[in-house]
């Protein structure tokens, strides 16, 4: 049984201007100990999907579908019940560690609070556990740093504190929303390595929400690409990078300035992400897609399996042969650019 199984998740917000369809029919599942990478631009619905999964949205959001966590339906559970599950079995890390820590409380207090709320222990034991978890996330002199305030830590150290806080009750799943976007590359490498190590030690499932395909390539087992509130491609990480099937994923790969290749011009995806208030008809990507034809503007493509690899799903009306041809061209262009750089 998968640890988490999401089926046909829908999230809508009623606003004065109309209904915003933030998440439309998202389905995926995640096993224990696996990492799911979720990629997409701002406004693609990737964060809202996981806020919905965790039940962290405002009451005004309308949700439907099913979220089964360890076999139990958790969408629409009562606040109290959800809080128990979230506190003990799920952990979440946000992008900006400064705004997600309380600046006027010592980090020790903030860590102990999480222990005391969900475990029947006294403060002394809570403190012992807090020091232990800080040591585990490699904060030097954890027994004295625990009495510091968030502003006394650097950005990378704060993100470690956030990870410690998410892990303190030994969760089964860790949801990380752009955990390294605000950090330097060197610190990012430290944090990614730390997350990988902790995942192995705790046999934890990780959801990595990011717009950086490099981070996904590094850490993820499975990847979903989101666009306009829908999953547009879903595959094992090796398959996705070896043979991407969907024009939007091609665009993302092409627009990445990569260290191992040199091009004079990056391929760019023209235009802006779609409005979720007035989404385009048909395929949401059609206004920005170089290969769009009439059918793309009229009919939403179904999520269908790739020809060779049935676990690889994507949405696109283009025929298999045509997509194979375009992808071969793109791959050749990447390889040529990499060759000229070497």
């Amino acid at each position: 049984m998968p640890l988490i199984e999401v089926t046909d998740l829908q999230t809508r917000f009623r606003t004065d201007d109309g209904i915003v369809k933030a998440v439309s029919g998202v389905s995926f599942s995640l096993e224990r100990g696996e990492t799911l990478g979720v990629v997409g631009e701002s406004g693609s619905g990737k964060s809202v999907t996981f806020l919905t999964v965790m039940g962290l949205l405002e009451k005004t959001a309308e949700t439907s579908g099913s979220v089964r966590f360890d076999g139990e339906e958790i969408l629409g559970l009562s606040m109290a019940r959800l809080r128990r599950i979230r506190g003990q079995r799920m952990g979440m890390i946000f992008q900006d560690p400064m705004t997600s820590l309380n600046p006027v409380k010592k980090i020790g207090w903030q860590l102990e609070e999480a222990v005391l709320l969900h475990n029947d222990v006294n403060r002394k034991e809570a403190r012992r556990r807090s020091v232990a978890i800080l040591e585990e996330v490699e904060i030097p002199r954890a027994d004295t740093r625990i009495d510091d305030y968030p502003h006394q830590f650097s950005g990378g150290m704060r993100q470690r504190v956030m990870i410690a806080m998410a892990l303190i009750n030994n969760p089964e799943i860790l949801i990380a929303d752009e955990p390294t976007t605000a950090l330097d590359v060197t610190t990012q490498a430290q944090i990614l390595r730390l997350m990988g190590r902790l995942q192995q030690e705790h046999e934890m499932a990780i959801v990595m929400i990011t717009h950086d395909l490099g981070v996904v390539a590094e850490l993820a087992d499975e990847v979903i690409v989101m666009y306009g509130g829908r999953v547009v491609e879903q595959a094992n990480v090796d398959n996705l990078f070896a043979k991407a099937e969907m024009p939007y994923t091609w665009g993302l790969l092409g627009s990445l300035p990569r260290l191992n290749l040199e091009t004079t011009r990056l391929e760019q995806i023209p235009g802006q992400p779609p409005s979720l208030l007035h989404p385009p008809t048909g395929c949401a990507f059609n206004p920005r897609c170089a290969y769009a034809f009439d059918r793309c503007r009229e009919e939403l493509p179904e999520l269908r399996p790739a020809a060779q690899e049935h676990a690889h799903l994507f949405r696109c009306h283009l025929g298999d042969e045509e997509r194979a041809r375009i992808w071969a061209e793109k791959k050749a262009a990447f390889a040529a650019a990499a060759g000229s750089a070497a």
Partner: protein
Amino acid sequence: MSELLVVENLQKYFPVTRGVIFQKELGQVKAVDGVSFSLEQGKTLGVVGESGCGKSTMARCLARLLEPTGGTINFDGRDITHLSRKSMRPIRRDMMMVFQDPYASLNARKRVGSIVAEPLEVHGIGGDNDRKRRVQELLEIVGLNPEHYNRFPHEFSGGQRQRIGIARALSINPKLIICDEPVSALDVSVQAQILNLLKDLQQDFELTYIFIAHDLNVVRHVSDRVMVMYLGKPVEMGSKRDLYDEPKHPYSGALLSAVPIAEPTAGRARKQIVLEGDVPSPLNPPAACRFHPRCPRFVDGKCNVDEPELTPASGGGDHLYACHFPLERWPMGEDEIRRVPALAGSTE
């Protein structure tokens, strides 16, 4: 091509004081400590380093938004290091800045038209009608709809706002544009749009860029020369090829190997050097080589005693590095990098 900008031994120290009335100087933060480079017209210098390495302070000194503590800045054949505000004014027409955060760097209460026209107004260029025409032309150049002249910044997305910032920088035909992390707040797909735009503009208008970023991929894509900074000092400088194919300084190597590769097989196969700890405080920087406490090649008795000078690499004259034990080849694994050769005899 002539040198547009020549910087020698630029320094910027910030005093650290205590007390309000009787201020006592406790020490100095040496944010920029001895940066020298020259930049040809039409070329791009990329500057990389972790946060706190002084790259933004350096940019602000170059634009004379901060008063340098020492050194000289020669811009377009003129020493501008100590020019007064008034004599600086005509020179500011030739150097503009583009900032990191497109949300914070545009006045939320002004319309796009007047934001872009502001440099024209400040420098008294053209009448109202000329300015309006110029602004619409600029909006078109940076890929925005000229009819959006009367909109407010909040009506635009992050990438579009960065385009507005670029239009503003272009408005008075500057020679030099200093871009301080112009794409780090943007999504990859939008990043590509902005990087391509900056490249096109460079060709069309013969612009010279100083491009500051912490993302080595981005810097590689736009730069001709690259400077790597650590705690206020350049540790390595060279052409793009020198630096990315044959880095000499262990810090450059660590930065290069830290970047995630968007290719699962290559990513897993690569040899990564993960630096430990954070950048130390610039208030009390480590002695001698400032990188020594984090350096995988640290040699006691040498690196913490004797400060390495910027020396030219054997290959070419303009590839400089400051390290006693430079990398012999690239890429190197974590074990290899720790094995410092040619040590016997020198210290023992």
